[in-house]
């Protein structure tokens, strides 16, 4: 078997007395797409931050293509894993045009043909010349998120971490960005770790998923199996919480209380 893109073993992180992530392990095969599903406090964002080196795990190891992430140099780490956050307004430099922001990344990584690569990136995420010349505040939320995705893809990372990257977008725009991500996945074979609370969106983009609850993985598996035959009561609660015809919020509240009393 070939070396997985990501091999995470026994990851732990605590803040004071709060356990954010406890003994998390997973692998991401080449070209794979893994969903990390959970609500606030589940440890999904902490995990995402550890994957890109913004947080240092207390214990455990992250291997990217068999090499420990912690030992890599800063630029090597940037080429290994990139991230797109929920709010691109906070992650893009407000003073730079989108073209300049992309160019900056490429210059830092000594890319041989920056202009051509910038054009390629803009094309990949569906941004035109007008958007390339605009600063973040001149763009809509969906366009900014496309720009953030282009910036993350610039150095051709092995793994792209998406932390609630489509959650703040309007539904019609969210669908556009999801299609951009699905195309990128198909065309580049990049590994994707998709952090989200939205099971339907995870289903659209991922083959497998982990369900996190209070820092612990309560269930993992192929996304279709997970959705059609959930084993853990928390997974069942998450699935039934999604509004649908004949939805009974009362029943779900009872289910939730029963779960809380047990833990």
């Amino acid at each position: 078997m070939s070396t997985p893109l990501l091999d995470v073993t026994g990851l732990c992180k605590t803040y004071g007395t709060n356990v954010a992530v406890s003994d998390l392990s997973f692998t991401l095969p080449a070209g794979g797409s893994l969903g990390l599903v959970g609500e606030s406090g589940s440890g999904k964002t902490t995990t995402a931050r550890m994957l890109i080196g913004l947080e240092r795990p207390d214990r455990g190891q992250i291997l990217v293509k068999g090499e420990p992430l912690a030992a890599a140099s800063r630029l090597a780490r940037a080429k290994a894993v990139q991230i797109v956050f929920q709010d691109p307004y906070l992650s893009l430099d407000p003073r730079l045009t989108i073209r300049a922001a992309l160019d900056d990344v490429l210059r830092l990584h000594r890319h041989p043909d920056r202009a051509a690569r910038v054009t390629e990136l803009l094309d990949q995420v569906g941004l035109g010349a007008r958007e390339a010349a605009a600063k973040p505040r001149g763009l809509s939320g969906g366009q900014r998120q496309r720009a953030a995705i282009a910036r993350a893809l610039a150095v051709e990372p092995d793994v792209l971490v998406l932390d609630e990257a489509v959650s703040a977008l309007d539904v019609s725009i969210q669908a556009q960005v999801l299609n951009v991500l699905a195309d990128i996945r198909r065309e580049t074979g990049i590994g994707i770790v998709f952090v989200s609370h939205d099971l339907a969106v995870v289903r659209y983009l991922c083959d497998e998923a982990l369900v996190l609850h209070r820092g612990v993985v309560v269930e993992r598996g192929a996304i279709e199996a997970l959705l059609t035959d959930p084993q853990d009561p928390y997974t069942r609660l998450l699935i039934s919480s999604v509004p649908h015809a004949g939805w009974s919020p009362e029943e779900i509240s009872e289910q939730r209380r029963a779960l809380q009393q047990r833990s």
Partner: protein
Amino acid sequence: MNTLLDIKGLTVAMAGLGRPILDEVSLAVHDGEAVALVGESGSGKSVTARTALGLFPGGATVSGSVVVGGTEVVAAGPGDLRRVRTSVASMIFQDPRAGVNPVRRIGDFLTEPLRRIQGRSKAEATAQALELLGAVGMPDPPRHLRQFPHELSGGMLQRVMIAYALTADPRLLLCDEPTTALDVTTQAEIMAILGRLRRDRGLGILLITHDLDLAASVCDRVYVMYAGRIMEAAPSAALTSVPRHPYTRGLLGSAPPLTGPMPRLAPIPGAPLGLAEAVSGCPFAARCAHVVPGLCDATTPTLERHGDSQVACLRAAELIDETQGEGLR
């Protein structure tokens, strides 16, 4: 049936904008009815809800009528507005933390309007605050009265905000994205509480949301709004089973399904219309797959009845024939 909120032909415009913020909006909420107003950012859904409290954007020109519990609030005097806000309609918002003073206890927060506006004694106000916290399903009301907002989770604090809204003993509860900032499982709790209040107190509810599935699953009727206009109004079941406006269909087709086949998403192209952009004809024409040049960009469609629904689309009748049997959601 008693009409709690009756908005008729409401237009809110401001100088310097390309289009009106609200354009000929008509909407009604009856006693004990749950009605949803669905739309994307900038569609005017929050502005519409706020007009029910007599809150209009500063400097705006307002025409049309907004009658709340029998009182006209467009151009109403301070006395009428005060009466509407303190005894007919209350509002809860998306972020409960933004609406509460972080350095005051929950008990002070809840008893202040009861004492100062409703004129209760201290003991009466405390007793009523306890009762309201119980009504919104807080587990330990006496303890919560002594707590500060930071000691409560977002879901718990949203319940406190609902209790606060109930201090006015309203007949109409305006809920502006009340669960958008909350976890999915907490959303169900809040919806269950709103459902119970509606049943027990006969509250009318206007739910503002961007989530069409949520709207259709908890409300009796749904209004779909786009660029300041109502595009479609229908009973929930009719809206999701036979969406008639291309925009409604686009919204339904934009959300990936949780079960069944997973086709590639067919998003609506382009982006929602900004306030600076001028409109001629149908505001959705620029993004619509069924647009007919010369027709849709020339005539502004008004709501017409088709089956159980009201649809603002010039091609609604032909499109229904066209899509019949295609198995659209």
